[in-house]
Structure formats: structure tokens, C-alpha cells
């Protein structure tokens, strides 16, 4: 079922991680990504894995949900592994058979690249798993608001993002419904040659587009009915404010970076 896609999904909850200010989580996610690229040692990876595991545990996210998020990337992960494993130059050969050659450096690099990709993706998933899309756009808008001075339409951009995010599940549901309806009329979406299959998608895409436009019209009307006229001077119902928890989170983030740098210096 399409419903089972977890990309960017939000798991509601009430844990310390969920309660953090979205701005904190956004900044820490960026810090996490940067930190991940500073890792050069196995000890560093162990530290990052431990940190990620701790956050996963505190946020009550099932490890299986994280693995499921990685599933669509399996091709990239395997590709990265194969590329690094077989095509890294070096003379510390571990295994050789005709033109296939695996070096110690290659093996090490393959493992570390795969680890890095997986940690990168799971870490960013942690943001979307614990923060509602609305909170993310809210946080982004506030973080980017200095750009307003440069005449970047930050508010409009965040509204667009918010609407897009809001409608992803709706459109997925709609696709599911139309797919069921057309399958009930004998539509065959799974077999046939490529052109045949592309043609079989038409009964799905046309109703989907029609309904997307209808929804856009309805939404625009509903916004106008409530006297929406842009972002100037709008106040908000939910004010973002940072508390001691956010300070603590930043502290832990700084510790992580410091730890990675220390391990790198020590070469562990």
C-alpha cells in the first residue's frame, strides 16, 4: 500500500525530543550532518551511532521505523559499497581474482561510506519523525527571517512548503482511492511493456490532476473567505520559544562535535 511510505513521516509523541523547539532540532540536524563529515575514525562512528541510538531511544522511535526509512535508499547504499570496494586503489591487497581486486583501504572506505550514508539519512529522518511538518516550516521561517531584509519572500516560501507538505498525505490517499477504483474496473498497472504501462497510468494521473486543481481552488477560496492577505503583520497562535531543554540539547550537540574532534585528534 502507498500508505506505508514513511518518507518524511511524522510519528506523534510526547517525549523530550518531540518537545524541543523546531529551530533547535533544525540547527542540531545541520550540526549533526556537518559533524558526520568530520568523522575520520571508527571511534567517531561509534560515538555518532551511540548518539543516534540515544535520541532514538528517548524519542520512542522503533529502530525498525529507521530501517524502513532506509529501504528506498538500498540501491544507493549498495552502489556506494560496490564502487568503493572494487575501485579503490591501494597495494594492501586482501583478495584478488582476475580483474577483481579488493584492497584493505577499499574495504575500509566502503564500510565507512555506507555507514556515513546510513547515519546521514537516519539522522535527518529523526527530525521528520519527531517534528510535525507544520513545526518544521514554522522553525524554518523563523530561522530564515533575516533573509527578509534581502527581499527574499521567506513567508510565502514557507507557506508554499507548508501547503505542499500538508497535501502529500492527502494526495497519496487520493492516489490510493483512484487506483482502487480503476483496478476495480480491471485496470492493469503491473504487467505489460513499458509504453503499455505508461499508458495504463493515464486513468490514474488524469483524475489525480483534476482533483489536485480542485483542491487548490477550494483551498484558495477558503483562505480568501478568512480574509487571508499575505504575511505582513500576521501573528501566530503557537509562539515558538526556547527553554532550558533547548539549551541542554545544544550543549549535548556541542559535546558530540567536541567528542568527534577529540577522537580524531587521538586517532581512535
Amino acid at each position: 500500500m502507498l500508505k506505508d511510505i514513511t518518507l518524511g513521516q511524522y510519528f506523534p509523541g510526547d517525549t523530550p525530543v518531540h518537545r524541543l523547539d523546531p529551530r533547535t532540532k533544525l540547527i542540531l540536524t545541520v550540526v549533526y550532518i556537518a559533524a558526520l563529515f568530520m568523522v575520520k575514525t571508527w571511534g567517531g562512528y561509534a560515538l555518532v551511532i551511540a548518539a543516534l541510538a540515544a535520541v532514538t531511544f528517548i524519542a520512542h522511535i522503533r529502530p525498525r521505523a529507521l530501517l524502513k526509512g532506509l529501504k528506498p535508499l538500498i540501491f544507493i547504499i549498495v552502489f556506494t559499497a560496490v564502487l568503493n570496494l572494487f575501485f579503490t586503489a591501494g597495494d594492501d591487497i586482501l583478495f584478488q581474482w582476475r580483474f577483481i581486486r579488493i584492497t584493505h583501504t577499499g574495504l575500509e572506505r566502503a564500510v565507512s561510506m555506507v555507514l556515513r550514508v546510513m547515519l546521514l539519512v537516519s539522522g535527518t529522518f529523526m527530525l521528520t519523525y519527531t517534528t510535525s511538518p507544520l513545526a518544521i516550516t514554522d522553525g524554518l521561517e523563523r530561522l530564515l527571517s533575516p533573509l527578509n531584509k534581502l527581499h527574499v519572500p521567506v513567508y510565502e516560501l514557507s507557506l508554499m512548503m507548508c501547503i505542499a507538505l500538508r497535501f502529500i498525505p492527502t494526495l497519496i490517499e487520493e492516489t490510493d482511492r483512484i487506483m482502487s477504483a480503476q483496478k476495480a474496473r480491471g485496470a492493469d498497472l503491473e504487467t505489460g511493456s513499458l509504453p503499455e504501462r505508461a499508458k495504463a497510468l493515464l486513468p490514474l494521473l488524469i483524475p489525480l490532476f483534476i482533483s489536485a486543481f480542485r483542491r487548490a481552488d477550494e483551498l484558495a477560496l477558503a483562505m480568501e473567505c478568512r480574509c487571508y492577505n499575505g504575511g505582513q503583520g500576521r501573528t501566530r497562535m503557537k509562539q515558538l520559544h526556547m527553554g532550558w531543554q533547548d539549551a541542554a540539547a545544544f550543549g549535548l550537540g556541542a559535546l558530540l562535535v567536541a567528542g568527534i574532534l577529540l577522537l580524531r585528534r587521538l586517532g581512535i
Partner: protein
Amino acid sequence: MSLLELRGLTHVYSRGTPFEKTAIDHLDLDIEAGQTLGLIGHTGSGKSTLISHLNALLKPTEGTVLFNGEDIYATKAAMRHARFRVGVVFQYPEYQLFEETVYADIAYGPKNQRLSQQEIDRRVREAAAFVGLSEDQFDRSPLELSGGQKRRAAIAGVLAMEPEVLVLDEPTAGLDPAGREDLLEKLFAWKDASGGTIILVTHDMSIANRCQRLVVMESGRIVLDGPPELVFAASEQLRGSGLDLPAAAHIAGLLRRAGVDLPAAIYTVDQLAEAILSLRGKGGAPC
């Protein structure tokens, strides 16, 4: 042997996530050919999930569905076959219309059945006639039709497959009372003419009491099953399932409680009116 047999049917959504939900739970149901069966239940009771199993759209987590004694999930071909023998009209079917003309849209199902051109043509015309779409609408775009006409075109698209069982999920939702009545009459006329079986999923008790048999669902299980008079007699249990009685049955109940001597099986406005008038004949309550 019944036409459709549901055996221990179970469906669990999003298994292994926090959103895991058992939509139907070890459900057994036999549906006889030629029946008009009403499937009623509160939102989220599993009605829609149930009907998606009748034509093999959803695969059950456990259990199976037999059509004429044959497992509809046995092979890919059997699953596809089930699609054409059990025609399912989902809620708001007008959103599935996509072809350039009404004719082409109704012909989509029969075309997927790989029928001959003449056969498709015959079926499209017949199906359109059943739902009351005139032939001068054939060349129009389905998007230009009125709401009620769109609904009918979509239903015709399923009828054109000439299914043995027609399943409709809230077919009258969003129609005005006259349109509702009209559509129901056409559906019952189709049943009489084709000898088919109808399964109606509905919230509307005034539609439910026109079925021969009612099946009441609550959290994925069947809680009541029988002819309307029996089901509506269990008014307490119905209310427990989050359903209302038809207005006439409700009024009859209130009158009975107020001491008016009314017979037990009253669930349509006509029956209520008759019962009250016969009281007057007896010279019972002064009206």
C-alpha cells in the same frame, strides 16, 4: 453453497508500526445470490476495507474469500477474474472519470475485459440506459456533466462490466433526496433485470431498511445480522454500535413508551402511518 463466502477474513493495516490497526477481525459471512444486502456500521467499523476484499483489491492478512466456492486469491488470473464478477463502486465514484467522452469512460471496464467491439458497444448502451444517461450525452466530456450525472456515468462504468455482484459504497452520498430515490430505484431495477446481487454500504437507515438483509459491523466484526425488522428490533444494540434507528422506528418506540399500543415491527414511515391510522379505527387513542 453461497455465492460469496468470507472465511475468517482479517485485515491489519500498517502492521508493525505505531499506526497498526485491525480493520477486520476474523470475519465470517455468507452472501446468497440474488440478495440485497445492506452493510451498515459506524465510520471506521471496517465496511470499506471489507468490500475491497470482495473483488481481491486488498489481500487479507488472514482468511480468504470464496466466490462460487473458489478461492479468489488462488492465482493472479483468479484475482483479475474476481474484479469483473464483483463490480465495486467506491465512494464518490465521479472522481475516477478520466476519458475524453462519457462513452469512452463507460467502455473502459469492458475494454479491460478484452471484449469485442460490438459487445463493448452493446454493454455501454445498456449500462447507460440502466442509470438513465441518454445517448446524446455520450460525446460530452464527463467533466461537463452535472454532479448527479457524473455519479451515474461512473456507476454505468462498473455496470458495463456486467458483474454478478454489485457492491456500492455510499452510492447516494451528496445527492439530493430526489436524486437519491431515483438512483436507488435504478439500482433495484438493474438487480431485477439482471438477477444480480447487490451489496449496499450505507449510513442511511432509510436506505438500509429497503434491503432484504442487514449486516451491522462494529470494530471489524459482525454484531448483528438478519432481516431489517430483526436488526431494528435490537435498537439498544444498534445504538451501542453508534447507529441510529430509522426515524419511523424511533418515533414508534417513543409512542410505545408513552403508552400507545403499537405493534412491534415498525421501521418505515408507511408502516408507522398505517399503525397509527388503525388505532384510530379501533377508537383507541383520540387523534
